[in-house]
């Protein structure tokens, strides 16, 4: 269950997968938005506050790593969990170097997903906290 209210964005070109996973997340009280491409993901991020993006590596058009780079450029505080097939782990690891918080191998275990989601959220909170403290120290 969510520790603090937060907004999740689920990005995958496989519509049925996005639907099922977001239904599961909503069932435990999460607030979930869906996108089916990298472009759509960036559009949502531009107008909505998102805490964690769950991002598929392999998508047609803009792939997961390219999308990640754009996300981190415009919204450095948004945490990203890469979702990968077993064959694209190297790509996902590359994503970790570009600032993704963690990766999950498909089909991922739901409880593992929740755990990583909570950790990502916690890190974002800690980052915000640090920024607030730094700003307070400056004043």
């Amino acid at each position: 269950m969510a520790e603090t209210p937060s907004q999740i964005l689920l990005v995958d070109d496989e519509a049925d997968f996005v639907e099922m996973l977001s239904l599961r997340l909503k069932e435990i009280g999460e607030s979930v938005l869906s996108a089916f491409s990298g472009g759509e993901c960036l559009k949502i991020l531009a107008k909505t506050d998102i805490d964690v993006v769950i991002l598929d590596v392999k998508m047609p058009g803009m792939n997961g790593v390219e999308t990640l780079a754009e996300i981190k450029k415009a919204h450095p505080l948004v945490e990203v969990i890469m979702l990968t097939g077993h064959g694209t782990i190297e790509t996902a690891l590359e994503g970790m170097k570009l600032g993704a918080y963690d990766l999950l191998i498909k089909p991922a275990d739901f409880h593992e997903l929740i755990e990583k989601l909570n950790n990502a959220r916690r890190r974002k909170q800690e980052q915000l906290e640090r920024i607030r403290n730094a700003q307070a120290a400056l004043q």
Partner: protein
Amino acid sequence: MEEAKPVHDIDILLVDDEADFRVVIAKRLGRRGIRVHEAPGGEEALRLLEETPLDVVVMDIKMPGMSGIDALRRIKERHPVAEVILLTGHANTQDGVDGIKSGAFDYLSKPVELEHLIRKITQAHNKIGRFRSARQEAEFRERVKQQMVVAERLVALGTMASGVAHEINNPLAIIQDAAGWLRQILAKPEMEDMPRRGDFEKALDRIHNAVQRARVVTHQLLQVVRTQSTELSDPTRMRAVDLKQLVEESISLVESEAESKGIKILVESAEPPPSAWTDPYQLLQVLLNLLANSIQATGAGGRITIALRASLEEAKVEVNDTGSGISKENLNRIFEPFFTTKGVGEGTGMGLYVSWGIVSKLGGLIAVESQVGQGSTFTITLPVKR
């Protein structure tokens, strides 16, 4: 008189009914380094060749009992590599020609001139030597070709299988999450009194288990392809590994199972114990897989021997068992993904495929030799140095 140079290391069989002639020739050839085995007739010659295979036969054509020509035909039948030099009566060219038609290397007419005989023996011996090395080379080429065919097929199969695995993983994730969602709904308090709740739970359980099973297979498949696509696994895990220690570790993990089946596991190691430049965890995985297969194939009272050898460049681990062996047609397919002779639920047919993938990635080779009813030997060859 000038001493003729000795000819070394040739064994011949001299067949002649005249004992005196044999003794004289044997003595004179012996001085020149040609060891002579003697037989008084065709029957004895054939018997002797069964016991001691000799490459060059020098044989009189006129003998009581079996004639030289008959003996020649039977020798060529049973020992096709052997070369026969016939000795004919003086100026009897027809006998010699008949002999050559029947497969003789050449003929010499009596009385035999020694230098001439030695030259013929040496020629016949060299011809056999050339034939043998050509055959060895052809066999070697054939083996390499076969290994390449197998490797190419495995890579092609792997590429296809991984494509399938990828395509299956996505729907698998959907099935898993759909079933997971239903489970979450069932767990809600308002669903407590739902009719036939047990049936729903049972079905969801089965879906869950089936997805897990499929997941293991797709992960194994993709692991092999992944290992092929990267040069070496994790270079930081590569190090000089004491093979004897690793082999003993693997044995300790399967020992109780082997003992319960009455199977002995032995280690034969060169001294000092060979080492290889490799990833010990991955190699252990391969060893455990080979041992598990051997234990499964070997009956009570059987034996598994792991032999360790090394040269400057390569280290070899041979896992040999006295089990049921592998038939020739299965031998060619044994490293293919999903190839199994085990029953449903006993094996996925992924073990040797994964092992092949790991060993290839570690820069090594894995090969198998087997004889039905006698057992199998799997040989892993690994580099010794970085």
